[in-house]
């Protein structure tokens, strides 16, 4: 479809390891429409990290086409890829990757520093708005080590939102968090998806996380083995409410 955010066709990625060729992706095709919340599942070795790197414009496919918001990545230089990452993609990592000894606000401002079209005033305003969107407006002067894991991940999500990307690309974003915090993050993701229409591509290997998304693409040995709409999307907020109340210790 023409207006798909992501459109990948027969994507192949091979790595040369000495004399052997490792075929990580062996012809993957699917697309993501605006406003979708897609999880990409797969066990380790399924090729999901390779796919994520390509989706994130950090890597280029050996063969096949990848159109991000209508732009074919294949023909772009390293610098053009960097620009694409800056303008169209918001990354959320498993280990947050916040800059240490840097306030939440400055961490969120970071992508805007690489966008010369943004003035100092706009930058601050956008960063504050993004922090509000993740409900951390009152923590903007805190340093990462003064924030909990969940809060740090929310700062990271704010950083992913600040450039108004066409897609949020999350890599095991709940992998370092306990169940409760994971649900909090998923609840936030669902909210962003539902209320602000953000397109989210979420890579995970946990089926209960995938249950919060509207669609799941499952990879195995470099192929898409399953691509199904999730008819019965679980609400992360309800899941959160149903958790037993934590003992304070």
């Amino acid at each position: 479809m023409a207006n798909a955010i992501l459109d990948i066709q027969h994507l192949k990625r091979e790595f040369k390891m000495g004399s052997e060729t490792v075929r990580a992706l062996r012809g993957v095709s699917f697309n993501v429409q605006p406003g979708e919340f897609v999880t990409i599942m797969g066990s380790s070795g399924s090729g999901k990290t390779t796919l994520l790197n390509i989706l994130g414009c950090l890597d280029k496919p050996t063969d096949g086409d990848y159109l991000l918001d209508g732009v074919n990545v294949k023909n772009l230089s390293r610098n053009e890829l960097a620009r694409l990452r800056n303008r169209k993609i918001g990354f959320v990592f498993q280990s947050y990757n916040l800059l240490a000894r840097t306030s939440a606000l400055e961490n969120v401002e970071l992508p805007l520093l690489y966008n010369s079209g943004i003035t100092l005033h706009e930058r601050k305003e956008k960063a504050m708005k993004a922090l509000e969107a993740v409900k951390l407006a009152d923590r903007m002067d805190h340093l990462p080590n003064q924030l909990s894991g969940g809060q740090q991940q929310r700062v990271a999500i704010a950083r992913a939102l600040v450039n108004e990307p066409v897609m949020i690309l999350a890599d095991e974003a709940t992998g370092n968090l306990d169940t409760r915090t994971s649900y909090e993050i998923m609840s936030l993701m669902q909210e962003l998806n539902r209320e602000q229409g953000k397109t989210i591509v979420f890579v995970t290997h946990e089926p209960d996380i995938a249950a919060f998304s509207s669609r799941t693409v499952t990879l195995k040995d470099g192929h898409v083995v399953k691509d199904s709409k999730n008819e019965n999307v679980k609400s992360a907020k309800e899941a959160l409410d149903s958790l037993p109340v934590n003992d304070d210790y």
Partner: protein
Amino acid sequence: MNVINLFRIAWKALVRNKLRAFLTMLGIIIGVASVITMVAIGEGSKQSIRDQLSGMGSNMINIRPSSNVTVGGGARLGASSLQTLKVEDVDAIKEKVNFITAVSPGLQASGQVINGALNWPTTIQGVSPDYLPVIREWKIKDGLNFTEEDVRTMAKVCVIGQTIVDNIFTNGQNPIGQTIRFGKIPLKVIGVLAEKGENTFGQDQDDIIIAPYTTVQKRILAVPYVQTIYASAVNEQSSDTATQEITAVLRKQHKLKGSDEDDFSIRTQAELISTISSTSELLTVLLAAIAGISLVVGGIGIMNIMYVSVTERTKEIGLRMSIGARGIDILLQFLVEAILISITGGIIGVALGIGAAELVNVFMQWPILISESSIILSFMVCAVTGVFFGYYPAQKAARLDPIEALRYE
């Protein structure tokens, strides 16, 4: 990415690691400070050597008559018997030559100087008032120099050297205001020269009487010419230019044709000048070498820390790349960090160096001269050091693969 953002990013990265940034700077700070201090001490002593040498007359130019004519069977006449230099020549030189600070006629006479019962054989030198303070840079210890008015009126006044005082004012009498006689001419002593001691030829420089040239010319020698013209070049380097100008003026004054030989000769202190310049050059080269070494050491410190920093911040680099930093952005960030370290270190070093030089001056009484050129030079070397030693680590950072960098633990 715009330049302001670039500096902001680099600055924030440095502030995040204040201690490390400071330790890295330390090499540059010490390097620059020692350069500034040493150059200040070097220049200070150079200046004081130069002052002493100028006191010996390194700027002095002597013009004497020389014979371009032969008499009888081709025998040339000695300079003392020539009468070609006139007071008008002095005036012409004063008016037309640019590279001199002062010019004075010179007439010498020998004779006995008498004070009451005491007498002493000496020389009287007739000159203009500029001769002592400007041409010879010779201070008057007591009393005053004579004036243009004294020259005009052929005043019977004189300034005497210490040897004269020692020989004819033996009873501790104050010579100022006393009248002595040179031959038959009574002269009132109005000043005593500071002691100069012997010159390099063992001649007692203090054994002299200085008087207005008109007094010596008209009252003592009664001649229409002058024996010598003394001039003082603006500085050692302009001696040659001044000599050329004086030659042109005097040839015109004496109406010499193109083919005629000069009827005068000009002598400068060429040997003294070349000694001064070679000494100063040696000093400058030595200091430049020290400057170079200390800054290279500082630069290696920067490179070392920047390499460590790139490795340590691999993950940060990966993150920056993943959110849209291009290779060039990363390169410039690390380069600007290196430059900020070296320039900040340079500023602190300059301040510290000036302070240390002042301390040396105050506590050790060594002469110092803080030259702007040494500050500007070491500062520029700092910036260049930052670029040069910051480039390789920065390039290493820029070439990282974002995927690998993100995965780096």
